């Protein structure tokens, strides 16, 4: 499943769109790809767009929380964007916390939270 994760640069930030139902190797690949790109582009932050994700189980959540923590060690901030209501309800019931990562309703708000996207004026 190589190539199924793309990391997009938005200024000094990285934007990663998580596929809807990734298998475990793809989730692992996402983490590696993100960390490599953080280093390569000297990025200041990461936005993980999970708006298409329909199932967030404990493995997936742990990898996301871990990735955010690793990005933090590299001096970046992570915002998890676009969690669906059904996923938020399920994740809470399952007992997931995402390690206190920053979250936003959508990518736009996530970018603004990290100090990007305001240049075009408030929308």
């Amino acid at each position: 499943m190589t190539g199924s994760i793309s990391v997009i640069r938005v200024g000094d930030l990285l934007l990663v769109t998580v596929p809807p139902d990734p298998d475990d190797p793809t989730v692992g690949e996402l983490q590696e790809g993100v960390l490599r790109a953080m280093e390569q582009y000297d990025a200041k932050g990461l936005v993980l767009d999970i708006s298409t994700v329909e199932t967030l189980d404990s493995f997936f959540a742990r990898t996301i929380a871990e990735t955010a923590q690793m990005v933090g060690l590299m001096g970046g901030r992570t915002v998890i964007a676009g969690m669906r209501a059904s996923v938020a309800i399920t994740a809470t019931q399952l007992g997931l916390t995402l390690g206190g990562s920053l979250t936003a309703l959508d990518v736009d708000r996530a970018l603004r939270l990290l100090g990007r996207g305001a240049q075009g004026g408030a929308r």
Partner: protein
Amino acid sequence: MTDLLEGEIGIATESDLVVARKAVRGAADSLGFSVTDVTRIVTAASELTRNIFRYAGTGVMRWHRLERGGSLGLELTFADDGPGIGDIEQAMQAGFSSSGGLGLGLPGAKRLMDEMEIASEVGKGTTVTVRKWRRKA
């Protein structure tokens, strides 16, 4: 072809977990569960199939439609011939994990579903059965 409302999937590789999630989503969708309930059921199935893969290596997931007193439901069974669980009460505690996991799979699946039963014998294997009933609209 497997019927959407009942079937069986062998769990042996990581991609089987994806196949199992798809099958459960298909069954729950066609039974008319709400979006949130579909998400709950698929998430529980993801936890329980991953437990098979992680602790037993291989096993099987079966699912079928339920009907009781005019209510519709879905039953999922996760069976393996793996090492079994010595202390089920401990395994059901949130935060208990023998593998450095979050220890949320079993207790979480129980909360997400309406009913759950675990039968396990050390050295013989584990069978977890969960059910979800459709709430009347």
